[in-house]
C-alpha cells in the first residue's frame, strides 16, 4: 500500500450512469482483481473508495457513478488534473487454478472489479460466463467488455437481454446448462444476497465484493464493518481490510443493510 499522486489520463461519461476514469501511473505492488483504491477528492474531508476496474500499461481504471457531491466533483475533473490515491487496498478475489468453468455476476457499477478479474482470467483459457445486470440498455457499458467471454444480459425494463434480475437469469442458466466451479460477484447488496442464496442452493462456492462507507480504508478505524460468521456466532469484520471480497457463506446477510 502506498499514497501517491496520479495524473488523470481520461475521465469520460460512458453511459447514462457510468463514468470511466483512467489514471496514469503504477503502484510498487501490482493490484489484484477485487482490490480497491482510496481517492482524495477536494474539498471533501474523507477519501472515497473505488474498485479497480483494470490495471495495465501504466494505467489504472476506475468505473464510477455520480451518487453524491464528491463523485459529481470527480466527474468534472479533466485530463491532466492530479488525484492523490492510496492503494492498492483490500484482499482481492481468491483464484484457484482448478476452476475451469466460471460465472461472473455483476450489477451496475459492481461490474468494475469483475472486469479486472476477466482481464486476468481470460489469459488462462477458461470457460467464462459473464452475467451483466443493468437498469436499462442505456446503462450497459458495452465497449468496456473484453472479447473471449460469453455475455448474458438482463435489464429491469427488458430493453436489452432478459427482463428481470440477473440472479434469476443465472439460476435458470444453471438449471439448463449445469453449475460452474465458482461464482464471483459484484453489485448492489440485494443482488449479492440473492447470489448467496443461489450458490448455497447449488452448493457452488461464491465470492462477492462488498461495499460500505469508509473512513480510513486501511483497516484502522473499524467504520466499515459487516457481520461475518465465526466459530461461536459472528463478529464485525472490516470490509476494507478483511474484505472487500468475502465468501457468501460467511456473510450474515441483513434485511436492511
Amino acid at each position, binding site marked *: 500500500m502506498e499514497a501517491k499522486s496520479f495524473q488523470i489520463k481520461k475521465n469520460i461519461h460512458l453511459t447514462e450512469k457510468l463514468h470511466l476514469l483512467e489514471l496514469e501511473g503504477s503502484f510498487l505492488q501490482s493490484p489484484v482483481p477485487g482490490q480497491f483504491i482510496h481517492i482524495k477528492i477536494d474539498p471533501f*474531508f*474523507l477519501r472515497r473508495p473505488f474498485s479497480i476496474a483494470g490495471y495495465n500499461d501504466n494505467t489504472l481504471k476506475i468505473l464510477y457513478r455520480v451518487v453524491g457531491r464528491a463523485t459529481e466533483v470527480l466527474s468534472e475533473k479533466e485530463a491532466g488534473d492530479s488525484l492523490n490515491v492510496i492503494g492498492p487496498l483490500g484482499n482481492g478475489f481468491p483464484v484457484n487454478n482448478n476452476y475451469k468453468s466460471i460465472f461472473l455476476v455483476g450489477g451496475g457499477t459492481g461490474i468494475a472489479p469483475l472486469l479486472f478479474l476477466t482481464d486476468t482470467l481470460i489469459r488462462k483459457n477458461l470457460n467464462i460466463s459473464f452475467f451483466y445486470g443493468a437498469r436499462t440498455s442505456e446503462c450497459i457499458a458495452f465497449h468496456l467488455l473484453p472479447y473471449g467471454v460469453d455475455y448474458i444480459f438482463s435489464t429491469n425494463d427488458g430493453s436489452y437481454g432478459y427482463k428481470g434480475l440477473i440472479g434469476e437469469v443465472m439460476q435458470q442458466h444453471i438449471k439448463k446448462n449445469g453449475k460452474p466451479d465458482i461464482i464471483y460477484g459484484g453489485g448492489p447488496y440485494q443482488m449479492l444476497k440473492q447470489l448467496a442464496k443461489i450458490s448455497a442452493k447449488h452448493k457452488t462456492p461464491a465470492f462477492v465484493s462488498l461495499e460500505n*462507507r469508509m473512513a480510513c*480504508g486501511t483497516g484502522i*478505524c*473499524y467504520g466499515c464493518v459487516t457481520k461475518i460468521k465465526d466459530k461461536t456466532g459472528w463478529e*464485525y469484520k472490516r470490509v476494507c481490510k478483511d474484505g472487500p471480497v468475502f465468501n457468501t457463506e460467511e456473510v450474515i446477510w441483513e434485511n436492511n443493510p
Partner: protein
Amino acid sequence: MGKQSLKIALNKLNLKTPIIVASGIFSYGEIDIGYLDYKKLGAVVTKTITINPKEGNPQPRLWETPSGMINCIGLQNPGIKEFIRKKLYSANIPNVKTIVSISGESVDEVKKLTEMLVKKDVKVIELNLSCPNVNRQNLMVSQNPEDTYRFVKAVKEICRSKTLIAKVSPNVTDITETALAAEDGGADILSLINTLKAIAIDTEKRGVIEGGLSGPAIKPVGLKAVYDTYQKVDIPLIGIGGITTGQDALEYILAGASAIGIGSALFSNPYIADQICETLTVFLERNNLKNLSDATGLLNEKNKTGAKKSRKKH
C-alpha cells in the same frame, strides 16, 4: 538552522516529537500503514480497551459532515484479556511510545483494567472519561467533576509510578471544571478534547446517525478548551480536535498544548505528521526558539499577565 528540537517532555513522558496519534485511529498501534512515516510520531494511543469484549455498534458507523465526520464505532474491542494476550506486545513501534487507552462504566472496572496493565508494566495509560457512567443515567463520567475526580484518583492510586493521562469530554458547560477535577485526582497529563456529540440525518433511508463529531469543524472548540484549561491547571496538555495541518498544530501549541493529538485527519492525509514537523520547526527557527516547550502557551493570556486565576480544590 537545524538546532531546533521537537523533543518534548510531558512530566515523565518523553516524546521525540509532539505528535500523538489519538485514540481510536490506529486500532492498536500494531497496524502496518505503509504510507505513514513513523519516524515523525511521538506516541500512539490504542483504541479504547474495556473489561469485556465489545462488538461495537451496528451500521451505519460513519457519516461525513461539512468539514468533518461523525463516528459511532461503539468502542469495538476484544476486551482487556485478549488485548494483553494478543495485541499489547505487537503494539510496539520502534521509538514510538504506546499509550493504552482504557474506559470503564464504574470505578471498579477502571481499577481492574489498570491493575492488569500495571502487572504487564504498561508505562502510560490514558483514561477515556467519555464513557457512560452506569450510576448516573449514562451521563459521561467527565460530564461530572466529582465522578471525574473519583475515577482518576482510583486509577492513579494503582499506577503511582506510571504516567496517567485523563481524556476529558467537551460535552460540558465548562471544561476547565472537569480538567481541574482530573488534575486534583492525580492525572499527570490531560488530553482534550474528545469528539462533540452530534447527529446526522439520512433522509434517503430515514435514519438518524448519532455519534461523535471530529475533523476541522471542531478545531476552534478544541483550541478554546486548551486555551482556557492552560490558564487553570499546572499539568501539561495534549491538544486534540480537528488538527489537519501544521498550522492547526502550531495554534494548539501556542494556545497552551505541550503535545498534539491527530485523529480523523490521518484517514485522508498520510503526510500530516511530516507537515506538522515542518511547520513547527520553521516557527521555532523564525522566532529563535530552541525548544518546542518554549512555544507552549506563547500566545496564551496567562503568559502575558503571569497571573493564575483563583480556583477551588476538590
